């Protein structure tokens, strides 16, 4: 069955550190890729998405992600995190023309001020 793996369940960083959250999926066909964020007490919101074209996509709040097809990966990055980035981050994949999103288990990111 298709799956999405997020390698780290919890990440703790200091402010200004660089961030990379891993996401791998298992599916050999066409995919759409997403990163969602859930801030404490808030609902899920889209950070960025990849459908086609440039594999390096930029999202809101200085986040970016790179789609590496050969590695089935879509890692999320931010060069310098802020305390306000404390949240849970979810990677999600849509397979082919299917409308379903398949989700990773999420990574809880804590930024120490």
């Amino acid at each position, binding site marked *: 069955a298709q799956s*999405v793996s*997020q390698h780290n*369940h919890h990440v703790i960083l200091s402010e200004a550190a660089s961030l990379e959250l891993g996401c791998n999926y298992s599916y050999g066909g066409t995919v*759409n890729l997403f990163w*969602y964020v859930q801030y404490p007490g*808030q*609902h*899920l*919101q*889209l950070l960025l*998405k990849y*459908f086609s074209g440039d594999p390096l996509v930029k999202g809101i709040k200085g986040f970016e992600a790179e789609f590496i097809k050969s590695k089935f990966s879509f890692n999320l990055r931010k060069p310098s995190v802020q305390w306000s980035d404390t949240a849970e981050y*979810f990677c*999600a994949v*849509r397979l082919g*023309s*299917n*409308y*379903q*999103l*398949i*989700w*990773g*288990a*999420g990574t809880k990111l804590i930024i120490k001020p």
Partner: protein
Amino acid sequence: GAGVSQTPSNKVTEKGKYVELRCDPISGHTALYWYRQSLGQGPEFLIYFQGTGAADDSGLPNDRFFAVRPEGSVSTLKIQRTERGDSAVYLCASSLGTGLNYEQYFGPGTRLTVT
């Protein structure tokens, strides 16, 4: 504008009871999705509506779960004979269109606890 709203925000029920969870999508959004999120996991797809019809209900775990969207706007997720394993946060999302390029906007969820 108003986002996706879900009611109630919390629901505690006894095992075996029937519950209804409501979702109000963003006005004008034709597509509506239900997901379930168990503790420590990502959301899990349940069902997708395009207009009034369920276009994909392959994620519903069993026949105790049913969802409707009679007028193509508000949707209700219905769970019969609830079990403790049904405890989770139930998320609703809507999108403007049916194309794959449309973003899904999520509501705050309903936390269901079955005792």
